[in-house]
């Protein structure tokens, strides 16, 4: 029988402590996900058996969250293109939702890439960095910026892999995913999913550019039906270059992104 006995289990989903409004009126404070989003709940009592439950919902006067509802993007989640960016000009018609993809998309051997060796540099390449300080959209030559991630940095990625990426850098010192490298990941490596640690890789840029130049990395990946899972944690603690990954969406068709519990398993014999 299939077994993971002896494997090292690594939780890749950030722990969020829910902020709970109890039935007695008390409030238990919570924490946020790596992007600063909370998880607010309201306790209720089920009269059928006197058990308790919690609703994923904030009361109107909650001090932390500004509205009753939160989205499916709170905490670790996986997103596809349909329902999420299919209203953008230039997206392909055959883009799928996460509910339409086979489960094997979200389960299987994964390549782990840590890019700690891509130290930020202050040279002429800095001008290519896709973000700038403050509200500037670009950087200047000589700014201290992360390096472009190139195919040669991803040589361990095998065809059909799930790819898990991170680095030890933050902000504008994070190495960045360029359109040409993502094209290579899609067409040459044919990755089936990309998982990203909360910080470590710069991939969300040109967010306000005019379509179809906006959000190039999201466009390319989701347009090629390569879902993106984020914000993950603990990728940096993985000790092996190849792991077995689980991070499946809920089975709720039409929901453009889904909460996930993501996990990696490291083999005992590797």
């Amino acid at each position, binding site marked *: 029988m*299939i077994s993971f006995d002896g494997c090292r289990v690594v939780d890749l989903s950030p722990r969020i402590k829910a902020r709970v409004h109890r039935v007695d009126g008390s409030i238990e404070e*919570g924490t946020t996900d790596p992007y600063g989003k909370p998880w607010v*709940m309201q306790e209720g009592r089920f009269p059928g058996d006197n058990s308790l439950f919690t609703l994923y919902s904030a009361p109107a006067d909650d001090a932390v969250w500004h509205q*009753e*509802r939160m989205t499916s993007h709170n905490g670790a989640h996986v997103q596809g293109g349909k329902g999420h960016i299919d209203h953008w000009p230039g997206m392909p018609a055959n883009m799928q939702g996460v509910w339409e993809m086979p489960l094997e998309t979200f389960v299987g051997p994964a390549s782990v890439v840590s890019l700690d060796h891509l130290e930020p540099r202050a040279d002429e390449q800095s001008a290519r960095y896709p973000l700038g300080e403050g509200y500037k959209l670009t950087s200047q030559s000589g700014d201290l910026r992360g390096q472009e991630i190139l195919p040669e940095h991803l040589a361990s990625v095998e065809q059909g892999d799930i790819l898990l990426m991170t680095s030890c850098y933050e902000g504008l010192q994070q190495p960045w995913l360029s359109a040409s490298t993502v094209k290579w990941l899609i067409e040459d490596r044919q990755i089936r999913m990309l998982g990203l640690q909360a910080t470590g890789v710069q991939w969300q840029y040109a*967010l306000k550019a005019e379509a179809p130049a906006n959000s190039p990395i999201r466009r390319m990946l989701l347009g090629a039906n390569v879902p993106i899972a984020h914000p993950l944690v603990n990728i940096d603690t993985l000790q092996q270059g190849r792991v077995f990954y689980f991070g499946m969406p*809920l089975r709720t068709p039409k929901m453009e*992104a889904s*909460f996930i519990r993501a996990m990696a398993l490291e083999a005992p014999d590797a």
Partner: protein
Amino acid sequence: MTPAMFENLSKGKIVDLTVELVSRLTRLDGTIEAGTRDVYNMPWIVEETVNERDGTIEHLVGTNKGTVAEWPIGGLSGHMGSHIQLGVGHNDNWTELPDGMLGIWDMPLQTYFGEAVVCMLDHLKGQPILPEHLANVKEGDIVLLGSKWSGEDQPWIEGDTAFWLAEEKKIKMLGVAVPGISWETNTDAPEPNNSPTHRAMTGNNIPIVYPLDNLQTLTQERVFFLSLPLNVESMEGTWVRAIAIEDEA
């Protein structure tokens, strides 16, 4: 190079045991696309909203209280569709439950996957499930129960059988197909005689995952089973994607 262990795993057959719950979706233009309900009449409700940061569409989960007649409570609980639950925050308000009960978030991740025994009980139309019907259960198993029956024809878990599973067989997790199995009894009996399966499982820190689907499509008596809860502390029940992986035939 992929470890040999993972190469073999990749050849397994994944069987989705999760109930499909189609979202009731409100579009940006106000149109509403109907969804489905689970066997307990629970919906999944979302509404489109635009993320102003990048112009993507995201889904707000649930609905505002009092705005949708068929779901006036507004928010969605963790008990919609296939979900997993434990005692803390759920039934630890009941009397005469043991000390030391844990929440889902307190348990190691290894609790939620492993070797499972599949018990299809088609021969027990409208009968109690007794230990003698579960002879293939080994100590420490994840136990998946199902049958082809529904309504009053479903076999039910006797309270004594629930405690036998929990305390003698020390099962790791209980998964139940619904319809198929009536897994709880005496829900409105006075405490402490109410809901013996809840008491047996959550009192012994054994998670319950239900309603499951597709158990009848499994072809092997022993499978790898996985249903990971969300990593949210204080959420007493969470939605799951439950799967089995069968060996390559």
